[in-house]
């Protein structure tokens, strides 16, 4: 086939070591447009909500008064997320890796773990971690405050173990998505099995898993709302508390409260999703994308 000469002028083009920039002008424009539309939509939504309040669809002053209290809950929610995600990832990584091993006992135990924690609704795990923790510890721990503190955190732990099971599946699929030819190539270069895993398999698995992990992290954020049922005063917990006093102010209070809470949650998950997307772009390697389903 008549491919045109690569060097028509006779002088070879300089060898570029970096791939062409992803930040082409069109891409930057598209991104700016997206951000612009997002900001505009948010402002419009905010304006609309305030307008509804001023025309008396709901009690605007009451809604505004809620914000400081809910903000405290928001901070606690973020804190809990910051505890759950690392624990979940650490456990999930090892369980997921164990699921790719040969030993049927190790694999069986890891499968039981994954099946159990994936099959149970997180709210059931949290509620029973609290209840069973209470029963198990109430005779050994005399201090009621310490006891309560411990069982509250048991609920958080239950959540971490739950997300760990999902992350295990993501890690496993990521590892299995790296073709065995990659390990063979690495080992034929003389890399040890550990080096092969660390230098070749995991970096590829990580890139493939990143979008799924991001989704799972935003599930964790939403899951923390379930901790309110055992008495955590995070975002949803505070909302539950506010309802009792609010309903006396006017009957629509619960709806206003939950709407406001929804906005807070949306803000966190949206921020997280956007950061994951940025991360994804900065680690992007052509030919290594996850199937987006």
């Amino acid at each position, binding site marked *: 086939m008549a491919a045109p000469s690569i060097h028509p002028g006779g002088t070879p083009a300089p060898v570029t070591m970096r791939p062409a920039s992803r930040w082409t002008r069109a891409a930057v424009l598209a991104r700016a447009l997206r951000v612009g539309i997002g900001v505009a939509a948010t402002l419009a939504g905010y304006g609309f909500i305030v307008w509804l309040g001023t025309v008396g669809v709901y009690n605007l002053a009451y809604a505004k008064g809620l914000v400081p209290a809910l903000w405290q809950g928001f901070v606690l929610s973020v804190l809990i997320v910051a505890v759950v995600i690392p624990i979940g990832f650490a456990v999930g990584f090892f369980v997921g890796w164990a699921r790719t091993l040969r030993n049927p006992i190790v694999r069986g135990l890891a499968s039981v773990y994954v099946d159990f924690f994936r099959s149970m609704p997180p709210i059931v795990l949290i509620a029973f971690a609290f209840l069973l923790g209470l029963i198990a510890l109430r005779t050994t721990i005399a201090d009621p405050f310490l006891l309560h503190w411990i069982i509250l955190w048991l609920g958080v732990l239950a959540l971490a173990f739950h997300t760990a099971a999902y992350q295990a599946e993501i890690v496993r699929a990521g590892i299995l998505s790296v073709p065995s030819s990659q390990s063979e190539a690495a080992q034929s270069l003389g890399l040890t099995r550990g080096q092969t895993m660390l230098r070749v398999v995991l970096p590829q698995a990580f890139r493939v898993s990143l979008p799924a992990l991001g989704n799972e992290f935003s599930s964790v954020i939403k899951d923390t709302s379930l901790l309110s049922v055992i008495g955590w005063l995070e975002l949803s917990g505070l909302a539950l508390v506010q309802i009792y006093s609010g309903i006396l102010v006017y009957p629509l209070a619960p709806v206003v409260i939950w709407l406001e809470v929804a906005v807070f949650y949306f803000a966190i998950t949206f921020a997280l999703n956007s950061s994951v997307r940025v991360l994804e772009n900065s680690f992007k390697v052509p030919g290594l994308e996850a199937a987006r*389903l």
Partner: protein
Amino acid sequence: MGATVLRSPAVGIGAGVAISVLLFFALGELGFYSLPFILQYLPTGVGPAEASLELTTLSFLIGFGLALPLGVIRAYPPRIVRKHPNVPHRAADSLPKKLLAWPLYGFATAYVAVIRGTPFLVQVFLVYYAVIFAYPRLMLFGLSAPFWAGLLALTINTTGYQAEALRGGFQSVEGSQIEAARAIGMTKFQTFWSVTFPQGIRLVTLPLTNEWISNFKTSAILSYIAFAELFFWSRTYIAYQLARPIEAFVMIAIFYLVINVTLSRVVCYVEARRRIPGLGTQIMPGPHRV
């Protein structure tokens, strides 16, 4: 040879089942919980389990009907953000179509983003209080507010997740397939129903099954608006009324494990057996849903 046998999924599943059953009886014999009690009271959970399953399935089916148009709208964004290359030439859109496309796409996108971006707990309380506020003494077909609020909330929720699954399925149908359909003279509509839909649905069989399971698990939250489902039964009846919290946990675990593990295994098996050669992708597991 031996290694490949050890690696086969059947061995893993067998080991898993054996470990769980052993664990169940061993812990019972060791006195962690009472085996006779569990065996005696397990049948009382069948009614609540049916309630859970019915509500889950009903909302899932209604949700599928609503998610289909949303998924289609999301799969084919209006021009400027079109991400699907290779789609053959389209005639220039007429003005009404253009004017309609953006609001529809905006609505679908916002719907999916809001549903997936907020916890179900918040959604269900919102719906519940709104329903209570609008119809304080709701009673329809002998069913009261917890059922209807639960059904509404669950349907609204699963619609968002299914729409996203379907979008993914439709978008992963290859552009060449669409081009081939267009080349034999099929219209866009015919191409969708004869090619994109059947292929896309096959690609999302497993994600949709996972979505049903998620929906089932999510329905446990309805326990807190006093809908008498599995978790409500185990929590209020077994754990508090009969004062058997440990047994309550073991019993509800049995229900969820048996239903969810069996279903996902069976669907995986059937999907693998009935898969059309060459159609199907290795996909990442979806996130869990709340």
